[in-house]
């Protein structure tokens, strides 16, 4: 990846709504060149999706999140893939990760209430044939999401003029 492409990606990572004209002004490229490179990055899958980080608590949303750790059994010659594909098709499942250590998989699950999440885990996840054991951790507060700190910090001020 060349430096100009890295600049484009950093601009979009910082602000997904940043227009190609502005990225051009920040990188010294033309807007057409930015558009061409962004298209290439989208087509090649480097840019997966344009996403917004939302503080749902602040928005007053009642969603409940839980992190579910799964211990699973694997049959010979079959890896995690079939199970993982079943898991990530549930709309309640927001993320699926394969872990090293005591547990095999970690899911992030969302629902309207704790009860709804608990029932989803009990009925849809724990009952899967390969799932041996689940541990559910309800999320009480999110302090940081996707690299963004979700609460007001004291602003550090600088002198208006320095050498």
């Amino acid at each position, binding site marked *: 990846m060349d*430096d100009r492409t*890295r*600049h484009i990606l*950093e*601009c979009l990572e910082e602000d997904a709504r940043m227009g190609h004209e502005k990225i051009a*002004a*920040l*990188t*010294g490229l033309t807007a057409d060149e930015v558009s061409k490179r962004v298209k290439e990055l989208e087509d090649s899958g480097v840019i997966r999706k344009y996403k917004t980080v939302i503080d749902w608590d602040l928005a007053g949303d009642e969603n409940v999140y839980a992190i579910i750790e799964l211990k699973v059994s694997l049959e010979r010659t079959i890896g995690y893939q079939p199970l993982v594909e079943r898991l990530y098709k549930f709309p309640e499942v927001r993320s699926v990760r394969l872990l090293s250590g005591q547990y095999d998989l970690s899911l992030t699950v969302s629902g309207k209430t704790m009860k709804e999440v608990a029932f989803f885990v009990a009925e849809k996840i724990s009952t899967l044939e390969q799932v041996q054991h689940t541990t559910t951790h309800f999320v009480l507060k999110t302090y940081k999401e996707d690299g963004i700190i979700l609460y007001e910090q004291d602003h*550090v001020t*600088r*002198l*208006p*003029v*320095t*050498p």
Partner: protein
Amino acid sequence: MRKACTPSKFVADVMNKVPPSGIRRYFDLASGIDDVISLGVGEPDYITPWHIREACIHSLECGETSYTSNYGLLELRESLADHFSAKYGVSYNPDSEILVTSGVSEALDVAIRAITDPGDEIIVVQPSYVAYVPSVMFAGGVPVIISTKLENNFKLTAEELKAAITPKTKAVIINYPNNPTGATMGREDLEAIADVVCEHDIMVISDEVYDCLTYDYNNGHTCFASLEGMRERTILLNGFSKAYAMTGFRLAYAMASPDIISAMMLIHQYSMLCAPITAQIGAIEALRNGTDEMMRMVRSYDRRRHLIVNGLNKIGLECFEPKGAFYAFPSIESTGLTSEEFAERLMNEQHVVTIPGNVFGDAGTGFLRCSYATSLEEIEKALERIGAFVDGL
């Protein structure tokens, strides 16, 4: 009754000859204005990366609060030696050729005092950082100014240097990437300077505190001491303030041959004693693990550089393209105002703080220093206000 005292008569004569920093005046003026957008700051707007702060916190928890060697922690000097060897191919002995100081300001002062006898001439290339001329004067030296020009991209030329050298010349102070112009010097430019330096048997004090903030990623920065025959003729100054956003740590270093470092160490030993240990531990962490964060900040400055330079040109303030540091240096001559009139009126009428170029020497007359070490949003707002100010003239 005892005789009344007039304290001012005890102040050394040199103090009456050294003017206060022009920048300081703008600090005082800006302090009284609300809703200020500041392009006056010569420091990163980033907070020191967390892993560096965390290393300092951990060291304090471990009780590392003592003095260090006058030269600085050996571990830091070894890290610096490794860093310069790998980055620029120039080797320094950590035992005798590196001195850790409190900021490049101290390193500069100590370097000048270590080589200057009363009446020695030290060449200062302007526009330049405001401390060079006073530091020479405090040491009893005579500053000799070379004014670089926009038409030469603010580079020092071999001819200009040759013309300024006299039998009394001891050294020349160079600073590339440059504060306030953002000018850089390529290897060929510096080789020509090195020839003159050798021919006339003088030293070079090379302030390279902005070396990491060079936006030509392919050619990068040329370290003056890495040129053939220049290692022994160079006092290399550098620090952690700009590259790693560590201004408040006051941590820097000088590298030179053992005789020079030994002389500098004497002054440092009897004045500063040693740099703060916590800052030194932070610096070790910065050297070992700070490159990724530093490069992320550099790329961010680069984007801001494009924005402000293009923006100033669009407003009609012709702006030299800076290749390093984080300053834009537009000409304001087309407005018919002096640098100071422009800066003061811009501050009072539009609440944008900039520094008039003449603060950095006469060669800066007709220019303005605009620091772009501030957020994109602030730069955009500042450009709007500068545009409105120029349109209203």
